[in-house]
């Protein structure tokens, strides 16, 4: 049993912190982290709740492998009803915070209500208390972390917090820990801000020791690490190039959404790619990339640490941005770059720093800027409104918007609405590249058919981390499928979605799945935890979690009509590259998907599916 079996329940309205035992019956059915916290959430929260009302709850949850020597065993997730989407939200983060919470003796923290004044939660092992956050409210995440460590004389403390974006109501505000690791999507930070909760500072010295069979666990985790080390993606590609290894690959196959999905290839892709990050700059002879970095327990180490050119316009006379910090991952480089037609690597790195410093999702932000630039080109939005000229390709507009969105000022307040609300407000809902209110990540589904279905059906809105069929359709993991056909994609998407739910619930990083299948995860879980963690049961657990999330969304008011893609992807063919002439053929895949899911034609769970999964 590598759960700590303790839940910390914090009522922000009453100012109370209480301990309760973890529901082990649920743990055996939903594993941990994403699955288990979602179970708690759907049992306790009315699906119709306004995400920003005190009745919404916010759960920070670890998995059974969090805080162990299993490779990448340092993850936690933030579960709530998303501010951006109104759907179930579950944002996953690495860094060191999740392991620290587990080491303090907690599997999860459930936050309820709303504090009357800004507070932060301080946890030191068993002791949890709410503390006045007057001195850090209105400040950045970077300030908050430094301040709390200094104030409490504890440099080993780990902090997870929101920045000004989360305080001022940016709808896609993120929760950030360890300066630049993000529970990034769906506005989980917005919900945290609405509760007047600034930060959770944790120090855990108890450790994780309750492994079921330690000897077998050390054997199984060592075997898992060897698989990661021997795999070309996790052993070589990711440590050297990070996820950015994809930029040129996805551009070449004509699936790099460019200029708000008007194009599918970006002529500046090479300038913002992994290779470009390694290239010495003309100005100072140093590359953008300083080093790679691991999260807690991770033997892959794909994280990027970058340093901005000190002479670049974004940081001249701003030495606070001259240090090394979290650099561009593929999704951020795409959203800040290709989505807006911007090819200035240093400007993208700066915008990414700002996203980390004040806590907002670079994917939703960048994609919303893409829509703004399109509206500007159409003459719907003007320089006067925006405060700057904003044609596609303008790095200056991008970085200006980042600064304004961080502070929630000027047109930054509008960009903070997200693409769906903003495009509706300015009369062009068709220009919003979103599903269920959430902006697409960096894969155009006209060139990768399965991703269209994965986006349309993802429970937290458009997302690549819910069913990453890119692995199969582009990279050939675990088997190569043709990205241009719809055949077999329904089953493929389901398989990816269910397996992903297991990875996200175990306490490990989804990126291990480039090398690991459930067959590699099962022995690690089985050695750590009591219960049936065979591969067969894990598949069922994953499917159960997926359907639990679906049930919540249906109760929240979503219908089959929301399993859809923007008109542009269904009707405007890709205009270049290998997928030229293609649209996404969602209509061919969706009915079959409902069928393999055991859902009705209108996307609802059949009674026998509910029964089979024990929901």
């Amino acid at each position, binding site marked *: 049993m590598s759960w700590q079996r303790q839940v910390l329940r914090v009522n922000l309205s009453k100012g109370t912190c209480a301990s309760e035992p973890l529901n082990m019956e649920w743990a055996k059915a939903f594993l941990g982290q994403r699955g288990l916290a979602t179970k708690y959430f759907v049992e306790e929260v009315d699906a119709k709740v306004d995400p920003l009302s005190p009745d919404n709850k916010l759960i920070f949850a670890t998995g059974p492998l969090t805080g162990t*020597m299993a490779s990448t065993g340092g993850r936690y997730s933030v579960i709530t009803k998303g501010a951006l989407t109104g759907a179930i939200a579950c944002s996953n983060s690495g860094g*060191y915070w999740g392991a620290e919470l587990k080491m303090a003796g907690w599997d999860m923290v459930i936050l309820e209500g709303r504090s009357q004044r800004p507070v932060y939660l301080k946890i030191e092992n068993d002791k949890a208390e709410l503390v006045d956050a007057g001195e850090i409210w209105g400040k950045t995440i970077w300030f908050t972390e430094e301040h709390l460590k200094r104030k409490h004389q504890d440099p080993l403390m780990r902090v997870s917090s929101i920045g000004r974006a989360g305080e001022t109501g940016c709808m896609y505000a993120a929760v950030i820990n360890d300066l630049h690791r993000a529970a990034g999507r769906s506005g989980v930070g917005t919900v945290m801000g609405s509760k007047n909760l600034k930060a959770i500072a944790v120090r855990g*010295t108890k*450790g994780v020791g309750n492994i079921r069979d330690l000897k077998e666990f050390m054997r199984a985790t060592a075997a898992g690490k060897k698989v990661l080390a021997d795999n070309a993606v996790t052993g070589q590609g990711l440590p050297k190039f990070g996820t950015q290894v994809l930029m040129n690959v996805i551009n070449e196959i004509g699936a790099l959404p460019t200029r708000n999905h008007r194009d599918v290839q970006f002529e500046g892709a090479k300038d913002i790619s992994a290779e470009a990050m390694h290239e010495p700059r003309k100005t100072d002879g140093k590359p953008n990339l300083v080093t*790679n970095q691991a999260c807690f*327990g991770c033997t892959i180490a794909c994280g990027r640490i970058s340093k901005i050119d000190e002479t670049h316009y974004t940081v001249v006379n701003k030495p606070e941005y001259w240090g090394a910090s979290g650099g561009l991952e593929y999704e951020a480089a795409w959203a800040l770059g290709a989505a807006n037609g911007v090819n200035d690597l240093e400007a993208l790195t700066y915008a990414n720093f700002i996203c980390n410093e004040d806590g907002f999702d670079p994917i939703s932000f960048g994609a919303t800027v893409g829509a703004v630039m399109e509206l500007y080109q159409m003459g719907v939005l003007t320089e006067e409104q925006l405060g700057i000229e904003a044609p596609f390709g303008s790095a200056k507009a991008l970085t200006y918007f980042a600064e304004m969105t961080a502070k929630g000022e000027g047109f930054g307040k509008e960009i903070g609405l997200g693409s769906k609300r903003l495009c509706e407000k300015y009369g062009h809902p068709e220009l919003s590249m979103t599903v269920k209110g959430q902006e697409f990540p960096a894969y155009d589904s006209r060139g990768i058919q399965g991703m269209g279905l994965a986006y349309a059906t993802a429970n937290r809105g458009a997302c690549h981390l819910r069913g990453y069929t890119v692995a199969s359709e582009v990279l050939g993991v675990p088997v190569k499928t043709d990205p241009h056909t719809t055949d077999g994609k329904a089953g493929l998407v389901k398989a990816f979605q269910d397996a992903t739910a297991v990875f996200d619930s175990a306490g490990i990083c989804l990126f291990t799945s480039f090398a690991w299948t459930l067959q590699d995860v099962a022995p690690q879980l089985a050695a750590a935890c009591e219960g049936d963690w065979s591969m067969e049961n894990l598949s069922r657990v994953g499917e159960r979690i997926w359907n639990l999330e679906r049930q919540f969304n249906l109760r929240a008011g979503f219908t089959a009509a929301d399993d859809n893609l923007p008109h542009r992807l269904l009707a405007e063919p890709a205009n270049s590259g290998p997928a030229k002439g293609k649209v996404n053929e969602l209509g061919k895949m969706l009915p079959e998907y409902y069928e393999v899911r055991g859902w009705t034609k209108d996307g609802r769970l059949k009674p026998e599916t509910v029964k089979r999964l024990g929901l």
Partner: protein
Amino acid sequence: MMKSLHIDPVKCTGCLQCEMACSYENYGVFNPAKSRIKVFDFHETGRKVPYTCTQCDEAWCLHACPVEAIKLDAATGAKIVDEATCVGCKVCTIACPFGTINYVQDTGKVQKCDLCGGNPACAEACPTQAITYIDADWTGLDRMRQWAAKLDRQSAGHAD
């Protein structure tokens, strides 16, 4: 052959597998708070540096201990804390110039790296060989080899 721990910060990714391995070896739990090796993250530069006891020949901690609780392991050269003898006075923590011997509240004793009896768990767990356990007389051998190769390439270049 006498061996010693050798640390190459350039290779460290900050994964903390070493800290978990150390606490597991000594306490049977995964707990960086109880690790005798610590990884320091200098985030302004992106550098990550593991640091632990270097097993000084003339060990300040050993000489300072008033109850002779710190002893030499002749086989490995490690200076080892005998918990049964240690009275938790912490004088050794003052004497050590490097800060690598520390008090543990839970046990009321001090702890330091003991090289795991000659098979250091941290080196074993490190996925990038940032921590290795190698010939104590030749910790510089790899670096010498690299420079030798570089010099050779340069001189060969000149010869052409």
